[in-house]
């Protein structure tokens, strides 16, 4: 009986997680277009539903009814595999991400995470690394110049930025003495890591922007010079897969920033429920992502590499050394 309940709970949590992650891009696209509009003194979508609230649904229907086109020269197997490879890892990663301690429903304690891995951080970075295969396969299989250029850029960009990103979080791991995200949040109960690790946060955030391929580092799909980059040849539902994946990664980066540097669900001053604090912080970071997108221009490719290797990497190294010295 115990086992059945526990299993049922896990299945329920996973289903809920998948549902949330699949549905969240809908309001996020709306928000993104709305913010874009207002930043540019427009109104954004207004026609479908109240203030365009149903616009994402209309877009979704449009994407679903579009022709699913595969270029004649494409590698059909990889072409079909790529969107799935791009979509799955961001979903899998959320298994290791905690959203709070626990809530009690009907007298039973329900933990707000699917699993409490002791190497959660490692798991997150390992799995999110797979996502790049989706992008690379997608660009390569389409047999198009733009797409292959986009995916080559992504390849280099992902590798260059995963290193400083990994180094940036080492400071956090040193402070919490654990790689479990739960322990990391618990260690920040009094003082958030951002106080001790501002440089680490900076490196993490910039690398996160690059990892989720948002402006100013969206070279993989630089619509100005590459058509649409790696997903130039994709249409319909497969394109939607890439979109959902992009939003899931944006969300993941925000969640990680909150967990690693901004105290997770620990609140300050205002006593709100922990989950509310968590959601508010994540929403703030998602907003910052969108805000950045409509403020900054895209970096040139060589600048991108220079920032990654000449600025972020030394900074993250120095951060580790200084943290280590202070720790001793």
């Amino acid at each position, binding site marked *: 009986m115990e086992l059945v309940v526990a299993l049922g709970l896990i299945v329920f949590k996973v289903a809920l997680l998948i549902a949330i992650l699949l549905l969240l891009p809908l309001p996020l696209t709306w928000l993104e277009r709305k913010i874009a509009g*207002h930043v*540019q*003194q*427009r*109104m954004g979508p207004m026609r479908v539903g109240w203030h365009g609230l149903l616009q994402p649904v209309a877009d979704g229907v449009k994407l679903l009814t579009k022709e699913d086109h595969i270029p004649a020269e494409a590698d059909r197997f990889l072409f079909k595999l790529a969107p799935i490879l791009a979509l799955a890892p961001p979903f899998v990663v959320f298994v290791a991400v905690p959203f709070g301690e626990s809530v009690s429903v009907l007298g039973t304690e329900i933990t707000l995470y699917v699993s409490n891995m002791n190497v959660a951080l490692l798991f997150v970075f390992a799995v999110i690394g797979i996502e790049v295969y989706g992008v690379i396969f997608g660009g390569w299989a389409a047999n198009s110049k733009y797409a292959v250029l986009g995916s080559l850029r992504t390849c280099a960009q992902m590798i260059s930025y995963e290193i400083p990103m990994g180094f940036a979080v080492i400071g956090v791991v040193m402070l919490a003495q654990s790689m479990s995200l739960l322990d990391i949040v618990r260690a920040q109960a009094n003082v958030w890591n951002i106080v001790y690790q501002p440089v680490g946060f900076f490196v993490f955030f910039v690398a996160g922007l690059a990892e989720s391929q948002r402006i100013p580092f969206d070279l993989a799909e630089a619509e100005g010079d590459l058509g649409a980059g790696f997903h130039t040849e994709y249409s319909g539902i497969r394109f939607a897969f890439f979109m959902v994946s992009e939003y899931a990664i944006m969300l993941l980066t925000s969640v990680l920033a909150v967990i690693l540097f901004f105290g997770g669900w620990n609140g300050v001053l205002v006593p709100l429920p922990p989950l509310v604090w968590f959601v508010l912080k994540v929403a703030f970071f998602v907003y910052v992502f969108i*805000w950045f997108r*409509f403020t*900054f221009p895209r970096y040139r490719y060589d600048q991108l590499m220079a920032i990654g290797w000449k600025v972020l990497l030394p900074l993250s190294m120095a951060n580790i050394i200084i943290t280590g010295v202070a720790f001793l």
Partner: protein
Amino acid sequence: MSRTLDRIGTWIGWAFFADLANGLALTFGYMFSKSVTMQYPDKEKWLPYSRYRGHHFLKRDEEGEIKCVACELCARICPCYCIEVIPYEDEKGNRRPAKFEIDMARCLFCGLCEDACPADAIALGQQYEFSSFSSRDLVIGRDDLLGKPGKAMTGGGVVAARLNTEQDVLVETSEPQGYNWWRNIRRT
């Protein structure tokens, strides 16, 4: 000395991303400023100033008689040769146009016909919504021109978009003439 200090200040600013922060602050400010766009086909539309040169209309005199005396001066002066006037003599012995056609597809809205007219019979109004799928539909005859809305006395403002401007309805805004549209663009 102060230039050196300025330069040092700029360098310190760069080190702490003051320039990026400036940009962010600017876009953040714009996000809460008023939108300058109109929800044109749905809700509101722009009513041009009264000197705007839109669709032509023919005027009537006090007796309801068409003012045009079919002198063909407008047809002469028109740089695009898009007006065709054929005169006739009506019961009272006045010269009137039997046919008065303007090819709106060719018209360049210079307003010369309005200036040339000795009888003050033709003018360019504020109507600008007369696109059509066929350029043949853009040849407008005498009776249609008589039915077009005339000039509104006010202009330069936002009005409801779904008014029936096909008829003689004049759309007037409550905005005073000389309404400063640019005021909306920058929040200062």
